[in-house]
């Protein structure tokens, strides 16, 4: 298959299974088999793209002109390939998990669930391979819309409320900030294509650039930068597989991924470093990072705590972008992968606990370790990854981020990162520790979640360790970005 | 500019405004249509005034007449009169139906009924 064909196929595979899923709405087994098949196929295709890229092939595709001089473009560059690989791998894992979870939980409207899930993944692929801002924006918006039915899955008043906040903030920020920013970029530079070293003329007005950066950072609401972070906790009303894949991995990562791409390919690191509003935003990100951690500590609901933790971790990546030095970019990019595996494991565990024991609050988890030793073990491992401690992948990304702060001489930020890691430890790692603590309730028999859930947890937790052991794969993949030659 | 030269226009403006006032201020639907009628007729008067040439005669060609009034406004107003009567008849048809449906043609009473 040609390079362009691979890219299009990667988008189309999730879409093409949707009619199949819809048609099979009365027969769960073939329906879910179809989902699994599609995700496996998607991984293969993304691996194919990865290999082509490693072999130095150019992968790009263009549509006809949408507006004069402006087309839809797809292009494979390292960051996108990384993102697509993570997303598709975790789609497979999540589908396995979802089969167990949705059945055990007796959820309704499962067909709708799988169909929109597939659509969301297609959008994620579109974002990952977007060759210009227009394409990115198109899939970004459709992703917001196609995840809404997943968020309001329960159709209760609370779910609707959550859905309103979710969509309101995501659509609101993207329409009010992101879209004008894109149009402004188009108007100033007459191109929206991602370009190595940025698209702006060196003599572009600094004020304009400063405004643009602010618009972009706030406009990409999916990056959950404070004060536009409220949608993420609101989205937690969704079923756990949705929270796990979309609101720990796909959607939020799409946000920070967009920021990375804008930072690297629209501004260019040099220009970005010189942009006036960068510093202010940097401190906002830092604030977001710390504040979210503090709020997370006060959350008793497990999923809400994980959500705030996500906000905090996303701020790491934003920080990486805004620092605008090669090490921080590397750190930010790697953190996408590290956090993805860590956080999805945590969500899987939360879902498993819910399915097995119907417990949702942190305070109820005391002594649960004996009942669900496997789940709690995985939880411990993943929380270490989030905090950035060995033997997990999180170590490396945080390391590079630290290096980035040191390189720019921002001591304050280094300290902030350290403090945040400690907070992470407190609000996440303490949960499994206390679960394993011998409690008055006494030993009870094992009661693990359905086997499909356990398999998924094992896979994702294994991923955390694998990333610790083989970080060079990631590093090699993304190194062309920092050396200035990412785009085909 | 002497006063008399625009006297006609101003009177016609007054006529128009009287008609316009009836349309807006009166609540009776038939009265509104009557006002509309007056308003439109006054506009016709205005048009015809613009076509008049002092000392001219009606634009029917004849060998012993040199100066004619302008025929074009006449043509336009012939059409406009037809438009006016067409509007009036449609309006009246509506009024009849409204009366049948509401038992009244006073705006206030109808509004009150509509709200219920």
């Amino acid at each position: 298959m040609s390079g362009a064909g691979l890219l299009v196929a990667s988008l189309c595979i999730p879409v093409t299974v949707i009619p199949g899923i819809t048609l099979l709405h009365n027969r769960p087994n073939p329906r879910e088999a179809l989902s699994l098949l599609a995700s496996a196929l998607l991984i293969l295709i993304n691996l194919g793209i990865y290999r082509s890229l490693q072999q130095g092939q150019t992968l790009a595709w263009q549509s006809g002109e949408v507006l004069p001089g402006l087309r839809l473009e797809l292009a494979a560059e390292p960051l996108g390939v990384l993102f697509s690989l993570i997303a598709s791998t975790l789609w497979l894992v999540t589908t396995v998990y979802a089969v167990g979870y949705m059945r055990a939980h007796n959820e309704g409207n499962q067909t709708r669930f799988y169909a929109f899930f597939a659509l969301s993944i297609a959008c994620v692929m579109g974002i990952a391979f977007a060759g210009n801002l227009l394409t990115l924006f198109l899939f970004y918006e459709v992703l917001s819309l196609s995840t809404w039915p997943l968020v309001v899955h329960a159709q209760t008043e609370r779910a609707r409320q959550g859905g309103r906040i979710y969509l309101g903030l995501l659509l609101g920020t993207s329409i009010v900030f992101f879209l004008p920013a894109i149009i402004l970029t188009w108007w100033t530079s007459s191109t929206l294509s991602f370009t190595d070293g940025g698209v702006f003329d060196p003599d572009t007005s600094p004020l304009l650039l400063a405004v643009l950066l602010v618009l972009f950072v706030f406009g990409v609401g999916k990056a959950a930068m404070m004060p536009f972070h409220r949608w993420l906790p609101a989205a937690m009303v969704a079923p756990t597989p949705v929270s796990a894949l979309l609101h720990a991995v796909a959607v939020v990562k799409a946000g920070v991924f967009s920021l990375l791409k804008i930072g690297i390919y629209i501004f260019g690191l040099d220009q970005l470093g010189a942009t006036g509003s960068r510093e202010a935003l940097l401190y906002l990100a830092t604030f977001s990072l710390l504040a979210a951690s503090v709020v997370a500590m006060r959350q008793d609901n497990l999923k809400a705590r994980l959500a705030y933790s996500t906000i905090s971790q996303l701020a790491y990546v934003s920080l990486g972008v805004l620092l605008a030095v090669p090490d921080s970019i590397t750190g930010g990019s790697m953190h996408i992968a590290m956090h993805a595996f860590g956080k999805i494991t945590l969500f899987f565990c939360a879902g498993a606990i819910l399915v097995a024991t119907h417990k949702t609050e942190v305070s109820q988890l005391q002594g649960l370790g004996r009942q669900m030793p496997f789940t709690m073990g995985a939880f411990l491992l993943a929380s270490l990854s989030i905090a950035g401690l060995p033997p997990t992948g999180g170590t490396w990304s945080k390391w590079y981020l630290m290096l980035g702060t040191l390189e720019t001489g921002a001591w304050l930020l280094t300290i902030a990162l350290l403090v945040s890691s400690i907070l992470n430890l407190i609000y996440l790692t303490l949960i499994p520790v206390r679960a394993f603590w011998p409690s008055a309730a006494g030993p009870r028999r094992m009661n693990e979640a359905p086997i499909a859930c356990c398999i998924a947890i094992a896979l994702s937790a294994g991923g955390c360790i694998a990333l610790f052991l083989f970080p060079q794969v990631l590093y090699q993949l993304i190194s062309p970005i920092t050396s200035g030659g990412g785009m085909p | 500019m002497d006063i008399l030269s625009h006297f006609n226009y101003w009177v016609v403006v007054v006529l128009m405004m009287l008609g316009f006032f009836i349309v807006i201020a009166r609540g009776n639907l038939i009265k509104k249509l009557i006002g509309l009628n007056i308003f439109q007729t006054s506009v016709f008067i205005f048009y015809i005034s613009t076509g008049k040439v002092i000392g001219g005669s009606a634009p029917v060609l004849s060998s012993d007449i040199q100066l004619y009034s302008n025929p074009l406004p006449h043509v336009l107003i012939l059409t406009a009169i037809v438009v006016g009567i067409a509007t009036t008849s449609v309006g009246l048809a509506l009024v009849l139906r409204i009366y049948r449906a509401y038992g009244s043609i006073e705006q206030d009473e109808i509004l009150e009924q509509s709200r219920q």
Partner: protein
Amino acid sequence: MISHLAVLPVLLPLVGAPACVVLRRPGAAWAFACGVAFLAFVAASHLLVQTRELGVISYALGGWAAPWGIEYRIDLLNALVLVLVSAMGMTVLLASRASVRGEVDPSRHSLFYVAYLLCLAGLLGIVATGDAFNLFVFLEISSLATYALVACGRDRRALIAAFNYLIMGTIGATFILIGIGFLYMTTGTLNMLDLAVRLPQLGESQTVFAAYAFIVVGVCLKLALFPLHLWLPGTYTQAPSIVTAFLAATATKVALYVLVRFSFSVFHLETSRLALSLEAIFITLGVVAAFAGSLVAIYATDLKRGLAWSSIAQVGYMAISVGIGTAAGLQAGLIHLFNHALMKGALFLAVAAYVLRVGGTTFRELRGIGQRMPLTTAAFVVGGLSLIGIPGTAGFISKWYLVMAAMESERWLLAFLVVASSLLTAVYIWRFIEVAYLEKPESGKASPQKPAGMLLTCTLLLALANLYFGFDTRLPVSTSAGAAANLLGARTP
């Protein structure tokens, strides 16, 4: 017949309407009307192709040359609007059969189609003509037919709506007549091109100023630009759904065309002293309309009424684009004119299907409609997304150009307000989507399914058009670019 292309789109429905009276059977009348509308659409499309190739086409009716006779003058702008109006007229008419059967008194069906054709002919005539007074005549044809069509609504409030529209519409038309009279007095001509040549020679004249003011107020009444919008919500809500779909997709568009035509082709707004104050007025009113209309739409409990207010808001955008007054602004306005017709056509046709199925359009009646009518509701959602301006839909293109135009003229606040108001659109569209998909349908109100295949097909067709024109924008974009350039470049010394 090729040489008569300019007159055919108008002439066909104009002569077709009386011929339609002969057909007493409603089905036959409908089929005939559809055929006529289709031919008119074909003629209009050919005309667009011709104008793109040959430039302006002039057609002297009666064989009398322009200032003395009446002229049809087709440039890119008219041709685009002609195609749009005839296409929407045809599509809605095709969809109308089932809906008319469901909503209109059976004794009136065949005349309903006659009135529809007359309205279509009137609208097309307004667009095609190059003569100011002829424009007034066709305006009245379309208006009279509209009043009758609106009065066909089932509720008795339709009569009130029609009557109010008649009063306001006639006042508007009379204002236009006054304006045309003033113009005639000062120039001695009624031909628009001739007017455009002669008006600049007059210099600053109070009469010309008053003429413009009256024409603008009259047209804005027809356009339903805030605060002259009072007739619109009642009319759109109470008229039969098909009529609402037709009016929303065509009538306000034609009014906007007239506004643009007079402002730029005849009066050269861009060069005149008035420009600054009028700019401010149009933009302010447009922004207020966009916000006020959307806000009222958010609180509406009836879908049809909500969409009617949404039309007021959307007219606001078009007014803004006229107010910006640059080539980019006009282009944005024309693109939005085109796209908005597609959106509102799809939305109101979906509403027509709802009325047919559940008998009403209040949110209570529409609960859970998404499960009962999945395809229609899907079409509605696509139309709604287009209205919001989600990328991938036609509405996005409109928004893009409008924001672009605002930025180009360095009106940053305006650009911000435009995008912010589109968020309000999202609110009221989403309000319906929640009702349609998340609420449980009221039990015990299962009305029998009436066959409405054509209605569904046309609704889906328009929804697809919304998607198609979100990706392939060559037709509206290039044509409107040419039209805008013509409008501003037509400055004659």
